[in-house]
């Protein structure tokens, strides 16, 4: 991914900063600049999520394009944050330990790297709470 493309979302990726529509009181992560429910009537402000939530569903990925930062098998899940929104993220745990309903907490981790001399991507993953 281009440096600028990753860079412009850094604060959202590093710190789980999403958005909140004060018109309908809905929280968004990943962030949205337009509320899909209120559209132009929505009023959007930034919101820093606590980073606590629950696994809605998950998979253990055994086949993926080569990524030096993440070795297969790894666990990928959809996490529902306590404030409401759902996101897709890696769950750092043994594959057999992952389960639907597991409480998780966000952590700052390496997501990937382009090459030995290329960009390194950091972001949010989750561990068992």
């Amino acid at each position: 991914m281009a440096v600028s493309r990753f860079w412009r979302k850094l604060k959202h990726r590093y710190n789980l900063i999403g958005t909140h529509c004060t018109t309908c009181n809905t929280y968004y992560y990943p962030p949205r600049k337009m509320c899909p429910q209120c559209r132009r009537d929505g009023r959007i402000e930034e919101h820093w999520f606590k980073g606590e939530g629950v696994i809605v569903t998950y998979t253990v990925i055994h086949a993926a394009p080569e990524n030096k930062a993440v070795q297969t098998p790894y666990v990928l899940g959809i996490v529902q944050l306590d404030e409401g929104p759902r996101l897709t993220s890696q769950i750092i745990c043994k594959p057999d330990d992952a389960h639907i309903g597991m409480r998780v907490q966000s952590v700052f981790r390496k997501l990937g790297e382009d090459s030995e001399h290329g960009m390194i991507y950091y972001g949010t993953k989750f561990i068992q709470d």
Partner: protein
Amino acid sequence: MRDVAIIGVGCTNFGELWDKSFRDIFVEAGVMAIEDAGVQGEEIDALYLGNMSAGRFIEQEHLSSLAADYAGLASINIPSTRVEAACASGGLALRQAVLAVASGYHDIVIAGGAEKMTDVDTDATTDVLAAAADREWEGVMGATFPSIYAMIARLHMHKYGTTSEQLAAVAVKNHYNASMNPHAQYQSPVSIENVLNSSLIADPLHLLDCSPITDGAAAVIVAPAEIAKQYTDTPVHIIASTQTSSTIALHDRKDITTLDSTVAAANKAFNTAKLTPGDIDIAEVHDCFTIAEILAIEDIGFFKKGEGGKATEDGLTAIGAEIPVNTSGGLKACGHPVGATGIKQAVEITEQLRGEAGRRQVDGAEIGLIHNVGGSGGTAVIHILST
């Protein structure tokens, strides 16, 4: 609006076509459709081509010009348009052709779909397919395309008790059907054990739960129903054409085990055609993974939510049963050249409704449904075809 009919179809063999290029296969499919319809090239008013990612698979954009040029239609300067909605690109191309004819703007229109996937390695293909999902908030986080459907499968199992054996039953049925389809990529049957013993791709999906990487192209010719009989004794009428959208990311769906785009497209299609799911004799649905066929047969309304796995295991979707699904072998076994899939589905149903499907013929099939999905359900396209 005018009624629209399919007057000709063509489809290449599906598979790893090392000796054929992108332009070879769409010309091959197009010529077959034109000869089947008995039209002259000069009669064709417009061309629509469904393709997901030639830009990344063969580093070629501007397919509209390429297709017209190599089909010999650039010499008459016809309007040529490439359309894209990931795996639903073919369905979109068909719908654009239908709209163009129904509106009265064009008479004879060719809708094609083509994808050349094997000119890059498997890692690159996996990455291209991941672009059907949300790159910034699914792909970057480590999601592969199979992993998205694996998460649907896991929750479907958790909520409804769907089993790995029921998922495997979809693959077993579709491989069996493909064994009777000379165009299919895989023409050998597999067993439940074969599926369950194949390597895990994204748990609970095994290799044989996944559609393969395929080269292929397909084409159909559509015309106003009022003149269709001038070209063929067996026109196939398109009695509904619907397209819907939903969130691109799976995590934003209201219900992760329902493709609400499919539900909406099906409801609109049945309303348009004044039919119910029980009226459908045969269906080609989007089985990019085994779980996807189970979702499709539930979300279209053939079976209640949560009962698709059991229905498949009980044989209700086999040829000769209540609602034969994916007689071509589906994406799973006939193959899934992404942009061609939606058109291949139309070719299969047209051949079935004409009674030309050979050993996989569904007796007395008069009304067929085709269902094409983009990504994990961000786009759905449904057509209902009738004799």
